[in-house]
C-alpha cells in the first residue's frame, strides 16, 4: 500500500508539492507538466525526502523511469539480469521479452543500438520481472507504437499481479485501463 500523508516538497525555495495526500494500492498520478508528478514518484521510491508529511511504501521497489536509465554498454539481457535479485537464466528473461513484444534480434544487442520503443520494452521487463512489492512507472508507454500499446498494457497488468503500483501518465486510456486511485496534481 502506498500512503501519502500531507506530503510537501520543494527544490530550494520553490515549492513543488504541497500537502499531497493519498492512500492506494494502485495510484495513478496525472497533472500538467511541472506539477510534480515525477518528483512525487521519486518521493515514493525513496530517492527524495519530503520536506513535510510522510511517505509510506513497500520496501522492495522497481521502476520504469521517465528517462530509460538503461546501462548503455549492456545488452537487453544484461540490463534485466543486473537488476534481478540473485541469478537468473536466459529462459525466463527471453519469455518476458517475447511477451512484451521485443524482437529477438534486439535481445543480445547493446541497448544504445535499440529504438525508443524497444528500449521502453526492456525497461518494462526490468521493472516487472524482479520480485518487487511496488512498481513505479513514469510514463511507461512513451515510444510504444499504437498497434502494440494495448498488448503492452495488458502485459504490464498481468505481470503486476497483486503488487502495488504508482503510475504517472498523461494518457486517459492508461487511467481507464489500470483502474487506480487517481491523484491529480497542479
Amino acid at each position: 500500500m502506498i500512503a501519502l500523508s500531507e506530503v510537501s516538497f520543494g527544490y530550494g525555495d520553490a515549492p513543488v508539492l504541497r500537502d499531497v495526500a493519498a492512500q492506494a494500492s494502485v495510484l495513478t498520478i496525472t497533472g500538467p507538466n511541472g506539477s510534480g508528478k515525477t518528483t512525487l514518484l521519486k518521493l515514493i521510491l525513496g530517492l527524495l525526502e519530503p520536506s513535510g508529511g510522510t511517505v509510506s511504501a513497500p520496501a522492495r521497489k522497481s521502476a520504469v523511469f521517465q528517462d530509460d536509465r538503461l546501462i548503455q554498454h549492456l545488452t537487453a539481457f544484461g540490463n534485466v539480469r543486473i537488476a534481478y535479485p540473485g541469478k537468473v537464466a536466459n529462459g525466463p528473461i527471453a519469455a518476458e521479452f517475447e511477451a512484451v513484444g521485443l524482437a529477438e534480434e534486439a535481445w543480445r544487442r547493446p541497448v544504445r543500438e535499440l529504438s525508443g520503443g524497444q528500449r521502453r520494452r526492456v525497461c518494462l521487463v526490468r521493472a516487472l520481472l524482479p520480485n518487487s512489492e511496488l512498481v513505479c512507472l513514469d510514463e511507461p508507454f512513451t515510444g510504444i507504437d499504437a498497434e502494440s500499446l494495448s498488448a503492452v498494457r495488458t502485459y504490464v497488468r498481468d505481470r503486476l499481479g497483486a503488487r502495488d503500483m504508482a503510475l504517472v501518465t498523461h494518457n486517459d486510456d492508461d487511467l481507464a485501463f489500470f483502474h487506480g486511485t487517481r491523484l491529480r496534481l497542479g
Partner: protein
Amino acid sequence: MTSTTALDKPWVRGLVAAAFWLAVWQVAALLLGNTVLLASPVDVVAAFAALAPTWGFWASVGYSVARIASGFLIAACLGTVLAWAASLNRWAQALLSPPIRAIRSVPVVSFIILVLIWADSSWLSVTISALMVLPIIFANVEEGIGRRDAALAELAQVFGFSRSRRWWGITLPGVLPYFTAACRVGLGLAWKAGVSAEVIGLPDGSIGERLYQAKLYLATGDLFCWTAVIVACSFAFEKLALGALSAFESSLTRGYAK
C-alpha cells in the same frame, strides 16, 4: 577501374605515403652526401642489421622496456588509487591536489637531476616515466569518477543493486573510458620522458646510453636505428596495453549479457 579501387584503401595510401617519404629521405641523403649529417634509410637498415644479432642490443631494449613499462604501471595504479581517494574525501583531495599540480608543472629535467642526486641512475627511467604519467591518470580518473551517471546511481538504489553489481555494472564501466584515454596519452609520454631521462642520466645498458654513444661517435645511422627501435617499442607497448584494456571492457559487457 580496379587500380582506382585499390588506391582507395587506407593501407595502400599509407604504404604509398611511407614509400614516398622514404624515397625523399634517401634522395636527400644522397644529395647531401654526408652520413654524419643525414644517414640514409639504407644506412639505418645496415645499422639495424649490425646491431640486431648482438646480445647488447636486446639487453638494452629489455632494460629500457622493463623500466619504462614498470614506471607506467606504477603511475597507472597509484594515480587511480589516489584519484579514488581524492574523489571520496575532500581532505584527501585538498592534500593530494598541490603535489599533483606541482608534478605536472615542474620541468622534467628538474626531476631527472633530483633523482640522480637521491638515487642510482638505474631508477631514473622508472621514476621519471611514473612521474610524467601520474598526473594524467590522476586527473582523468578523478574526472571520470566525478562524472559518474547520477541517474544510474538512483537506478541502483531503487533496484537494490549489490555493492558488487554497482561496481562491475555501473562504476567501473563509467570510469574506464577516462582511464583508457589517460593511458592513451600516458603510454607515449612514458617512453618520451623515460628515454630522455636515460640520455641525461646514462644508466648502464639502457637505450638512452646507446643514443648518447651514437651522438658521441657521430654514428647517425645508429642514432636513427635506436630512434626507430624506441618508436617501435612505444607502439607495441601502446597496442598491448590498449588491447588489454579493450578486452577487459568487453569482458564487463559479457559478464551480464551472454
